[in-house]
């Protein structure tokens, strides 16, 4: 049979719980009914004074009641805490329109960004990156590349000399020479780096950056060059980019081609920047047999192609920059635009 005290306590607790609204009230309810001095605790302690037959039933009921009250308090307490926190925040509402605490914003140089993008694209196509010195020999920079002394092709690249046969490289092609001399085909590399030409105006800088590419293998054709550069153009300038090849002349390639990309500013209809609808972005061609022979390759056995582009030129086109000197002034208001 049920102990009448338990029914009474259940009713009283329900009433107290109903009345309690704050977390403090609820904590008080918990102490009143579940604390050391609570009636239920007393009751459980005094079980021994009951008839043996009643003890299990009364004990079970008392414990049930404890669990019931505890659950009731816990549930209401959670809701009360949420409500109280909300009210507290309402009282001290911050002005969230104040500027946020921003960490300082650093920026990579735009040339680094464009350089990284070019390198990433070609690494994705299986090109390893190769480097070499900027102070080079006349042989590696010119003669190995089929540009003898007193050849008018030297006019194409006005050169800074340190001595009669030491110069600042005018392109990163000497890295191609060094790589081919050190390695048997197949070769598939890109050579990024600083290069120097004795020329200074708003589109020419005496120091600028190039990325050149070279692929040499048993069967590699100008078609492969075209396909590879088409892929590059789509990655660099957007999925709908088109390129065209125009015949040109470089002493180290035969045949040679200038490569234009459809102007991404006007879409090819002709604008202030491109005039013709096309933008010249790089020079390329099939590696001249004499260059292959100079590095110890047999031009009947392997063929290859090479290309070279100016990072500044690509960056100027991509970002609409009209003066190359801005890259080397490092005005923070310029650099800050490339975050």
């Amino acid at each position, binding site marked *: 049979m049920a102990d009448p005290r338990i029914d009474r306590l259940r009713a009283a607790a329900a009433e107290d719980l109903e009345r309690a609204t704050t977390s403090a009230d609820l904590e008080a309810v918990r102490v009143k009914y579940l604390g050391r001095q609570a009636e239920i605790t007393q009751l459980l302690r005094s079980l021994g004074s009951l008839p043996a037959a009643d003890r299990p039933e009364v004990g079970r009921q008392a414990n049930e009641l404890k669990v019931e009250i505890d659950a009731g308090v816990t549930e209401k307490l959670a809701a009360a805490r949420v409500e109280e926190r909300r009210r507290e925040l309402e009282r001290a509402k911050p002005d969230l329109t*104040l*500027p946020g*605490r921003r960490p*300082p914003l*650093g*920026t990579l*140089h735009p*040339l*680094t960004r464009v350089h990284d993008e070019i390198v990433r694209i070609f*690494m994705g*196509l*299986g*090109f*390893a*990156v*190769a*480097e070499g010195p*900027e*102070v080079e020999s006349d042989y590696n920079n010119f003669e190995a590349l089929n540009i*003898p*002394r*007193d*050849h*008018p092709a030297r*006019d*194409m690249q006005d050169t*800074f000399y340190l001595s009669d046969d*030491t110069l600042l490289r005018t392109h990163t092609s000497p890295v191609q020479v060094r790589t081919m001399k050190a390695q048997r085909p197949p070769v*598939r590399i890109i050579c990024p780096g600083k290069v120097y030409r*004795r020329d200074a105006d708003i589109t020419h800088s*005496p120091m600028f950056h190039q990325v050149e590419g070279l*692929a040499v*293998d*048993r*069967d*590699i*054709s*100008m078609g*492969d060059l*075209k*396909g*590879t550069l*088409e892929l590059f153009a789509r990655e660099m300038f957007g999925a709908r980019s088109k390129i065209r*090849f*125009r*015949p*040109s*002349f470089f*002493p180290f390639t*035969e045949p*040679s*081609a200038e490569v234009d990309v459809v102007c991404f500013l006007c879409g090819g209809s002709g604008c202030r920047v491109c005039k013709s609808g096309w933008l010249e972005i790089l020079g390329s061609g*099939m590696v*001249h047999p004499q260059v292959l022979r100079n590095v110890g390759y047999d031009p009947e056995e392997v*063929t290859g192609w090479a290309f070279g582009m100016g990072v500044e030129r690509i960056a100027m086109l991509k970002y609409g920059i009209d003066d190359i000197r801005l890259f080397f002034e*490092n*005005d*923070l*208001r310029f*650099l800050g635009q490339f975050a």
Partner: protein
Amino acid sequence: MWGICVKLSWRWILEFLQTDLTPQEAAERLINGGVEVESVVRLAPDMAGVVVGLVEAIERDLGEHRGHHVVLARVSTGRERFSVVCGAPNCLPGVRAAFAPPGATLPGNRKIEVAKIRGVESQGMLCSEQELGLGEDHERGILAVGKDAPLGADLPAHLGLDDWVLEVEITPNRPDCLSVVGIAREIAALTGAKFQYPSITVTEGPEDARALARVRIDDPALCPRYAARVILGVRVAPSPHWMAARLLAVGLRSISNVVDVTNYVLWELGHPLHAFDYDTVEEHTIVVRRARAGEHVTTLDGEDRALGEAMLVIADPRRAIAVAGVMGGANTEVADSTATVLLESACFQPGSIRRTARDLGLKTDAAYRFERGADIEGLRDSLDRAAQLIADVTGGVIARGVVDAYPAPRRRPLVRLRMSRIRRIIGVSPPVEEVARILEGLRLPARREAEALEVEVPSFRRDIAIEDDLVEEVIRVWGYDRIPSTLPGGVLHPATRPPALEQADAVRRALVAAGLSEAITYSFADPATEAALGLARPTAEPLRLLNPLGQEASILRSDLVSGLLETIALNVRRQQPNVRIFEVGKHYARAGGAPAESRWLGIALTGARADLAWYAPRAPVDAFDAKGLAEHVLAVLGVREPAIDTAGDGPAYFERARWARLAAGGTTVATFGEIALPVREAFGIPSPVFVATIPLDVVAQIGAEPVRFVPVPRHPSVQRDIAFVIPVSVPAAQVEDAIHGAGGPLLRGVTLFDLYTGEGVETGTRSLAWRLTFRAGDRTLTDAEVNDTHARVVEAVRQRFGAAVRGA
């Protein structure tokens, strides 16, 4: 891009080419065929209705008007008469001049209407050169034309101005395109139009040229051929109008009929010629030899030229009379008195001409062509064409025959072109019949042998030497747009990057994340600036350029710091006082005789630590910002706890009391400090600048230790804070070393969290507070163990530095 632009007249080209193409269409085709056409410009300025008018009479004098004496002239165009107000001094009866009747339009869209000037009606306008956009001249008056000019004729047409000028830029391999005929031939090859090589005939007189003149080549390696003709009885005078006008159209000044012919033929056929006054050539003998030691010649430009012994000269038996292939000499120049002309058409070794022109600083049209290679067989045509023209325009008579020294006539090389090679190089090949047709169009005679062609290379195509040259010729005409688009096959290898680039990338990422901006400065430096920075080092001298753009960029930098300071100065000048930048770049030096390049990181800071904001403390940067960034980068590169070293001398550009180096394993891995006041003031920087540099190659050699996992602690740690009052002369790093030493294995962390001087701390001392973290790997520490270790630490610091425990 490179080289010079050659201007060519479209009408002139059409003398040798039958085509319906517009000059614009032809230009487009040339561009797609590899000949760069910079522009196609209408020769005549934009005008309409301007005709040849005759000033029949001056009807009235209208007096002074705006500083000119003004008259009313009667002008006839043959069909109509006009009363025209004119203030030109040469507006005289009988003059034929440019006349714009009402309704005509002048350049700049200036419409001519009937106007009232000084109350008198003017029906149109007599025009000056300037008003027609044909030149600058206005003061001399109206543009007069010849007495034979037909009245009412369209003026631009009469002046030969209804023409287009193609500005062509030639790659160094195609000197054959540097002429009207060359471009006509090229257009024909590219478009299939009919090309007509000029028919050149010479009417010779009775006298034998070989009896009149002799040619001796002493150096056939530098002059493989020298041909000459003699034209007698010439009368030197101004050129006929048609020739002067044509030369003017392509940008050449008319000089005299004889000289103009040599230029005319140069433009038409591409071969440089030279005319000597025959009577001034001693013994009428040409000697082609190298210059003698100390020899001089005065060239046509009036300059006295000291010749080098490597230079080739044209001489007579007594003296040099021209710098071969570059410029003629004044001593044999054709003058008004010249009666007999010795005309030279020769061929010189390109490299020799190039060196000579460069060493003399003489850029001439002749040298430009000879250094690219002249047509050794075609030079006879040029000689004949010019001789005939001289005879025609001067009334002279050509002596019979040619004095032609050609010791070793050229053999026509044969180059074999395999269709399989075209396929190999291009990926595809046109059928052999089409290849043969293309070669024919290019005037490259070929004999077919199954799937190959045997091509005979003519003398005007010096650039064709090997099979691949022919592959390009064929594909260029066939169309680069027909090259297929494929991707290379073959074995794929993993794409790798050199460790140096990986390292540079990591450095850049770390510093950008820390809020710095990357700069890229020139590798060039000013030796004066470097000297002011105290960068001169006994062990390494700077790399000097032989031909710098200027003194301020005449060496390669030996330190990044000058570029960084310049960058700070520029930004501060432009009202950006807070600068936090870095650069990854090279230092250049000559080390042990050889040029050496080393990779460095430079960091430079000035102004406030943080940009102005409501939450940011307004503190300027200091040396600890530079140090912290260096430590940050080193940590990223795997150098965790570099030692600090303040001993010795640092770079001269630092304040002596404000710099230190960080070292790992005894090697300097970073230097940081404050830029010395006079240094930054020399750059015009008003606020203190802090710099850190890291030798990236050195750090790469030290190498990051490979990452090894250490178990995360499972037992709790205990933290104790302790503050010592220590003399300020004791470096904090030494105290920390002592703490570590005394703490033993249980002491796992030492963090300096407070630094205090001021009230409560005796002058000459400071309070340094550390949080010590104790932990054991295998158990929870007892209070007794912690107390024990802590006490040892306190005792050690006390004894070693005379420190007092603060608040103890």
